[in-house]
């Protein structure tokens, strides 16, 4: 019984799906599911990145193109995402310390960081298109738009998730331990951050 009370009975009361009401391996199901999902995501982005690297190794002249991308916005966006990662993990810590007010603030900051990233991204795309680089300007630009665009979709999704989580945990009637929600939203956000860490040298710096 005491163990059941400690278990994260999250919003979907996940743990109670097990007939005896507990997790077989001692990790909440939502977290196991999140990591399984992330391991698939690693392969989606990883597959794209290794393909891009292989093309790049085959075409040494690609560095000419990567000089054309906007390294400034790319670098600023890196700081934005790292800071977003930092704030959401602080939110998780605050939830664990039962300091919900600070947690709301940190999640809000994370949402702002996501929106800021997307705004800077939009400015960057506008600049590239102004310089005449589109999807058709060769494989480098196709990869550039494809990969950063797909990543931007993830940032957008992550921002939506964070917003939903903020709404859910700030409701008066709390369905259970919000730590699990914030932690899983954070895991997704960190993953998006890690992907960007690799996109930065791939398209902007080298």
């Amino acid at each position, binding site marked *: 019984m005491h163990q059941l009370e400690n278990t994260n009975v999250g919003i979907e009361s996940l743990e109670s799906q097990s007939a005896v*009401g507990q997790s077989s391996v001692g990790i909440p199901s939502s977290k196991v599911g999140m990591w399984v999902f992330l391991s*698939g995501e690693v392969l989606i982005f990883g597959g794209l990145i290794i393909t891009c690297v292989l093309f790049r190794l085959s075409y040494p002249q690609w560095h000419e193109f990567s000089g054309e991308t906007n390294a400034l916005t790319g670098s600023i966006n890196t700081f934005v995402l790292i800071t977003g990662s930092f704030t959401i993990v602080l939110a998780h810590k605050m939830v664990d310390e039962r300091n919900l007010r600070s947690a709301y603030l940190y999640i809000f900051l994370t949402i702002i960081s996501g929106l800021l990233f997307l705004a800077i991204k939009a400015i960057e795309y506008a600049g590239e298109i102004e310089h005449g680089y589109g999807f058709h300007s060769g494989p480098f630009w196709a*990869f550039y738009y494809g990969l950063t665009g797909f990543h931007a979709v993830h940032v957008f999704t992550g921002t939506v998730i964070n917003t939903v989580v903020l709404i859910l945990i700030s409701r008066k009637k709390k369905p259970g331990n919000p730590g699990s929600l914030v932690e899983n939203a954070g895991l997704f956000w960190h993953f998006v951050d890690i992907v960007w860490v690799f996109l930065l040298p791939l398209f902007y710096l080298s």
Partner: protein
Amino acid sequence: MESIITIEDAHTEHQGFIRRYIFSTDHKVIAIQYLITALIWALTAALLALFFRTELASPGAILTPESYNASVTMHGAIMIFWVAMPLLIGAFANLCIPLMVGAKDMAFPGLNMLSYWVFFISSIVLFSSFFVPGGPAPFGWTIYPPLSADPRFTGAKMGGILFLFALILEFASMLMGGINYITTTINLRTRGLSMMRLPIIVWMQFIAALIFLLSVTPLVAGVGFLLLDVIVGTSFFRVTAQSQGDPLLWQHIFWFFGHPEVYVVLIPGLGIIAEVFASHTRKPIFGYKSIVYATIASAILSFVVWGHHMFVSGMNPSLSYPFAVTTIAISVPFSVILVCLALTLWNGSIRFTSSFLFALGSFVAFIIGGLTGLFLGAQVLDVYLHDTYFVIAHFHYTIFPSVILASFAGIYYWFPKMFGRKMSESWGKVHFWGTFIGFNIFAFPLFFLGIAGGPRRYYDITHIDYLRHFQWIHVLSTVGAILLIASQAPFIINFFVSIFKGKQAERNPWKATTLEWLAESPPPHHNWNGMVPIVVNDPYEYSPEEEREDFKPQGILISREEVFREGTDAPIGKH
């Protein structure tokens, strides 16, 4: 916590028709939804096969070359992605995993429902591609560029786009399902059910879901980029005069997924065979651990064999030797599994029900498929046999038993659990013999056509000098295909009549040991009627010496109070 459970159980009892049968989160209902959708698709794909087999037997009779291409493509793609996956992964994993691990439902029931409905949307998208100008996608189920990447080659732009969209949706749906199966197997096992006590089919579904998750994800990205090629006109895979696209890259990405995919649809089939063999021979599975470890080994090896599909593709020749070696090596774990299954039959007191006949037929036919695979795995022979009917025959001898025959075995076996009634045995046997004989007449002659050099995908072989004498093989094969498809009529009638008029089934009609037979037939929502299944035995304790009955169930049902009285500190099983 006590109160939470009672509230939850109470408010799920009274659901309207729509919540219960249409937008249901109940894993058993979702399993039946998957099953019926997949059977409808199977019928569609079988009709397509009927068209182009008739065409091959008498060239020019009913199909134009364009519609021939489209129906061949659609037959392959539908059978793999819209029949095999939802049947084995959608229906049987959904039905078996929660019941067999003693859970009340999947780990994420809402995601499970979403998984089915995304699959349903993908079905509609695919179906609509039959009616767009240009017809459905005609570039072969392997979607090779440049044919697929540039609509100018095929004239089926809209059909191709819809097909690729449907494919992405289908993958997303199966990924959602896979996340559920993996999490449920890892995390929702009931007390006493350690990993090494899981029934074989749960192991197989678990491993299949893992392989699928890890192999399909690069292809999801690949299909997305191929869509960009088709719609936007980028050149990732497309080759034009000034572009640097690489069609070979698609083949790599596709087969990096494609070969594990073959095991995704094969391994659960073997799991069904194992379950049916154990309960119908009244013997424990021979070498439970060997089967589990061999399956894990084959799952790992399946990721390093993809190149054997590309021996003649212009792949770097230095790659062909390692891929040939790994391909031959992967036959070792499969031999272990098959020998263990064969030894399960040894000295058993076998009951020849239709379910067992299908499992046995599947087992026998699969051995032929496995052995002919060795010819194709060695690159020296493959260069000769590649893209001939030998490949077609080999592929049908592996996929047809593991998907269709094993699924039929599973349907006859779990039908009482799904619908609370039994299917007619005598019609089941008619169904089996028609299907099995028809299949062999259809597929076996194609080996010889392939060895004679008959290339696959040709519209008409009567114009080719060295193949003119082999037209009779096509005719014979078509006769077999017609018999095979006609034999499904008794099944369809039997299936739907038995749902409403079949003999009432008791809880455990096969006297089987695994946990799902402890539940009512059909089990109520949340499966256990407020009781809790606790595992006390290994999964296959048939014919134990000391018992009066010839089987010892894997678990017992106890009341919820007893669980809490025992204390939750008791070990949940070895990990």
